[in-house]
């Protein structure tokens, strides 16, 4: 069934979009990543103009994240307090990121920088996570339990706050900084930042994996909603028909994703996410390294 999209101005297969939204929804529910780093390239691939793909992707992320978050709220695996602290840092970081992004745009080559950023961050995060989670996986198998909480300099910082759901009593400074840093990268790279936020919460803040997914979803909703509004009012690139098709698949996929997520062990979940991150990284790296079949591309002049 073909449907003509009013803003993208092309006709696309509705079932293809439903399926695409579904896959991203499953990932969203399982890992707490928004899926922006996955859906945008997939939309480019089926011929949606890049600007429309980025803006509409953000809207779809809001839907699948809400769908998955509600399940996590029911299971009480969302730390709202931690989420709010991260979000506060995130909004400040995102604001700074937009300024940096516009500055880089005036210098040119912003696409290249975004791609390099992706490859470097995805590579580092994916690699470290894979090694750590495989080690953890074998350790739990052999029956030894590694001590998770370590007393580091983080414990000595002031402004301590009790995060009951997470089971942490730490200073608000590290979560604020993590939030700000992720917000900064997210604004530059044009994504919600879930795939950076999730590992950062696990490894930097020492949060348990089960709580991380819901908490990450909580803050992604706000970041993605803000991005959607920004694109809708400045670039007019949110395609509501495209968004609806994607989010029907997305919200249903997210429900299945959360179910799969609860059936897996924390280490298995981390291994899978690490593999996914590395896969996207490898794809982007190949795009930069291999000679493209078409050297020329068409863009609209501003």
């Amino acid at each position, binding site marked *: 069934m073909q449907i003509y999209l*009013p803003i993208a101005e092309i006709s696309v297969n509705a079932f293809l979009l439903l399926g695409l939204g579904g896959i991203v929804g499953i990932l969203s529910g399982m890992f707490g990543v928004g899926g922006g780093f996955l859906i945008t390239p997939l939309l480019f691939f089926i011929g949606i103009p890049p600007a429309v793909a980025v803006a509409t992707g953000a809207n779809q992320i809001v839907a699948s994240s809400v*769908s998955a978050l509600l399940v996590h709220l029911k299971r009480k695996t969302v730390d709202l307090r931690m989420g709010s602290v991260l979000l506060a840092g995130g909004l400040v970081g995102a604001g700074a990121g937009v300024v940096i992004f516009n500055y880089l745009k005036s210098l040119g080559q912003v696409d290249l920088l975004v791609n390099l950023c992706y490859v470097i961050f995805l590579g580092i995060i994916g690699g470290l996570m894979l090694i750590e989670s495989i080690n953890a996986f074998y350790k739990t198998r052999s029956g030894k339990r590694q001590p998770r909480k370590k007393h580091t300099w983080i414990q000595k910082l002031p402004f301590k706050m009790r995060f009951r759901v997470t089971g942490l009593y730490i200073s608000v400074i590290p979560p604020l900084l993590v939030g700000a840093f992720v917000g900064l990268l997210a604004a530059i790279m044009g994504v919600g930042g879930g795939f950076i936020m999730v590992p950062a919460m696990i490894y930097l803040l020492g949060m348990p994996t089960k709580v991380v997914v819901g908490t990450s979803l909580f803050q992604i909703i706000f970041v993605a*909603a803000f991005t*959607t*509004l920004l694109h809708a009012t400045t670039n*007019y690139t949110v395609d*509501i028909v495209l968004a609806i098709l994607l989010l029907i698949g*997305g919200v*249903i996929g997210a429900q299945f994703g959360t179910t799969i997520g609860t059936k897996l062990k924390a280490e298995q979940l981390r291994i899978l996410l690490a593999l996914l991150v590395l896969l996207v990284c490898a794809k982007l790296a190949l795009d930069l390294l291999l000679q493209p079949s078409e050297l020329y591309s068409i863009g609209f002049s501003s």
Partner: protein
Amino acid sequence: MMRGFGIIAATLIGFFTSAQAEESIVLGLNQSEVSISTDFTGSEIIIFGAVKRETPIPDGPELEVVVTVSGPSKPVVVRRKEKKFGIWVNTDAVEVDRAPSFYAVASSGPLQDVLNRIEDLRYKVSVPRAIRSVGAPMTIKDSSAFTNALVRIRTTAHQYQQNESGVTVDQQTLFRANVQLPAALVEGAYDTRIFLTRGGVVISQYQTLIDVRKVGLERWLYNLSRNQPLIYGLLSLAIAVAAGWSASAAFALLRR
């Protein structure tokens, strides 16, 4: 006085046109407007007509017909990738001042036989002539490679078409052309031109507009997104949140 002048001018123009075009075009279209609705998957325009003449069919080369349909133009930037420090990056860019979003040429025979080069240049008929590029920077010596790439990419996407058997001419009097509009269509006024040629020279031409418009829901959403962007954005978010909530509620019921 003014009126007398007007009459003289009118007769002069009348004489001039009749001398130039002893054969003129009477045109029909199967649709003078194309409506883009939600289920739009492309459209076919049939352009048909007859050649009106007061005198018998002249001897010499056969009558040929060329039809062009051109969508709204927008300046575009064509970028080229080059390998630098081991990775492929965009380096050179050429701005093309005029590139129609859609362009189709249909002719009753091979275009180079039906229309000679000078006439092609004058009326900008063939695909490369329909694009105009003047702004190539001094550092780029092969700017034609960029316009060629533009034509190549858009031809692959069926946005540019050249069909050398797209027009059938019957008894040098009746003609009929089919132009296939792709599903990815931009709205606007599509300029449609019909040329009659003999021996590669244009003897008569006719021009009309085909209106391509979004209708119904497509129209309403497009207008809302431009005129009330904040409401449109909030509406998108409301739909997203509502869909997320209802999916979770529905699944909660199913699991019970």
